[in-house]
């Protein structure tokens, strides 16, 4: 079975480490916050100027001056700090964030990522995504393995305008956990009940399958 959005987030959460500063993108990445392991401390960075993002506010706590990068009202966690946008991107571009999780339309075997524009269709902009992929070393891309029409999103070469060049090393899809290395996709894990053949069929770029590929565990 392909992973649900929640399961993708749950698997990503296994990559968290105690004391990590983490930037979560909009969509599936946001859900990762729900699966931080018990007893582990992570600090969420919101690119609009908040380190230590808390949960959504109650109606009484609601504050128009306190939002996250998705423009949602939030609260501050204990030990949070507030800063301006230049400071926020100094953290991001200076490589101070330990883990970045973001979505994408496509990735390719050379670690290129396309996530911000579909010419003629969707032109909303990159927001902070280009800064995040250029500045972070430890990035996990989350996305569905293929489009609704069964077209692979793991390609030999991205077809859409790039968000970043040669910067993606890990991809977690609804079918597989994949590492990008030496111009190839390396299959690390598969979703429970999903066969290696199924994954290979939906991966357009070169896929390396070395030995027995374990199923993800939750």
């Amino acid at each position, binding site marked *: 079975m392909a992973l649900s959005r929640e399961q993708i987030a749950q698997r990503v959460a296994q990559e968290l480490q105690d004391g990590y500063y983490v930037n979560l993108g909009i969509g599936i990445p946001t859900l990762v916050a729900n699966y931080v392991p018990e007893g582990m401390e992570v600090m969420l960075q919101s690119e609009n100027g908040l380190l230590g993002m808390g949960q959504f506010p109650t109606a009484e706590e609601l504050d128009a001056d306190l*939002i996250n990068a998705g423009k949602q009202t939030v609260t501050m966690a204990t030990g949070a700090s507030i800063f301006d946008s230049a400071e*926020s991107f100094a953290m*991001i571009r200076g490589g101070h964030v330990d883990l970045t999780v973001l979505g994408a339309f496509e990735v390719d075997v050379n670690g290129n990522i396309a996530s911000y524009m579909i010419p003629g269709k969707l032109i909303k*902009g*990159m927001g902070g995504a280009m800064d995040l992929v*250029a500045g972070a070393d430890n990035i996990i891309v989350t996305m569905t393995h293929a489009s609704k029409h069964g077209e692979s999103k793991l390609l030999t070469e991205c077809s859409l305008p790039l968000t970043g060049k040669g910067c993606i090393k890990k991809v977690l899809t609804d079918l597989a956990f994949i590492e990008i290395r030496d111009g190839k996709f390396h299959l690390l894990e598969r979703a429970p009940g999903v066969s290696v053949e199924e994954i290979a069929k939906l991966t357009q770029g070169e896929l390396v399958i070395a030995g027995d590929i374990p199923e993800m565990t939750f």
Partner: protein
Amino acid sequence: MAGFDKVVSSYEEAMAGLTDDMTVIAGGFGLCGIPENLIAEIKRKGTKGLTLVSNNCGVDDFGLGILLPNRQIKKIIASYVGENAEFERQMMAGELEVELTPQGTLAEKMRAGGAGIPAFFTATGYGTPVAEGKEERQFNGRDYILEESIVGDFAIVKAWKADRYGNLVFRKTARNFNPMAATAGKITVVEVEEIVEPGELDPDQIHTPGIYVDRLIQGTFEKRIEQRTTRNEAQG
């Protein structure tokens, strides 16, 4: 006005001197911390052909979006747009020029502009459409592109509190682009929720020193929320 007193008495006075085809840098992120009354004054003045530098362009009936129906914006430099229908219509029709700029690069363009730095190298955008036509250079084996800074004819800023000398304090994430915008205007206009006397703010707690501020006005704010998300108390 005398000495360091930056307070003006009307929004008309606050935006005096803004003329067609000028560049205006605006603080704010989404609808959070936007100078909503200064934007309304630009709409009232009817100034046209403006180049707007702002992370976003508001929504249809609030924030910078209200400058769209009368075609007051010629060009916008932003990182994320399209939260409003009229914006998309004008962009698709080629009536509005849009320069999409990565958010960190946009913040740095303002910061550098205000600090007298004409350009800077960044890895952000290398190998993407953002890099087109820009100088590229390697440092320590890594590729960078040259980005030019931005200075505005006007900067419009929203802060929480100020003293009459224009020392500013921002509140929570309404800070965002406002401090950089404040440094990057030839004329920087700030609107705040409360003005106090010099000496009442703790010098250690000031986010933006008054040297960057030319005009200051106290206003009342709607502070509209774009995505109202709450949890039930029971859920904890």
